[in-house]
């Protein structure tokens, strides 16, 4: 496979996955009745709740280990220089925007937990979906954890 093809493989796979997820959400969520499905806001019934949490943590570790394998055995050089452009090119504003959205969602969560008559906290939405669709929740949690583990796993700079 050409170097460009190798670079394209991962984003192309993620694009296919995102199309499937968007289609599933567009088909399922508009007709989803939370009141009928979620009379309470408890965590998913055992074993799904703990299993989802534990498998999510394992997937995070796996994502980190996979990225270590990539660093060890794949031919593209690991980014090791302290002068590699990271923020200068402007593309890192997308992750910054992502973190800003996360901040707003946590703000919304705080308001919802303070007064659930005003908003439903995001926790309740997540637990509702997790109770209603445990296998799908497990799958999405695994994918997110793999991705975050791949990104956030710390690799110290080489000293050689």
């Amino acid at each position, binding site marked *: 496979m050409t170097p460009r093809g190798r670079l394209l493989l991962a984003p192309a796979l993620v694009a296919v996955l995102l199309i499937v997820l968007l289609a599933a959400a567009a088909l399922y969520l508009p007709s989803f009745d939370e*009141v009928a499905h979620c009379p309470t806001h408890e965590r998913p019934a055992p074993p799904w709740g703990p299993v989802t949490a534990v498998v999510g943590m394992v997937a995070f570790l796996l994502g980190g280990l996979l990225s270590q394998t990539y660093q060890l055995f794949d031919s593209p050089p690991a980014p090791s220089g302290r002068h590699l452009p990271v923020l200068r090119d402007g593309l890192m504003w997308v992750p910054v925007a992502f973190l800003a959205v996360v901040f707003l969602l946590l703000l919304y969560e705080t308001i919802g937990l303070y007064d*659930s008559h005003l908003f439903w906290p995001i926790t309740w939405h997540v637990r509702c979906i997790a109770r209603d669709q445990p296998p799908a929740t497990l799958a999405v949690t695994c994918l997110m954890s793999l991705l975050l583990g791949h*990104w956030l796993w710390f690799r110290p700079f080489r000293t050689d």
Partner: protein
Amino acid sequence: MAPPIAANAVLLLITAAFLLLLAGANLIDVWLALKGEAPYDVRIITWVRHNPVFGLVLTLIYGALLGHFFWS
């Protein structure tokens, strides 16, 4: 308890915000790959190598959210 406002709309908004941001990042990733430049994961991994404490904090937040949502 019944949702005070259109709960489905909030759920859709949350899902759409995450998926659309991921889709946008993915499109940029494809564009970078076509140009033969370093993809997003390399840039983010490099950034975490420069800022390990921030990466650790994000990891802890994610772990806390996992436990909060699912652990019983």
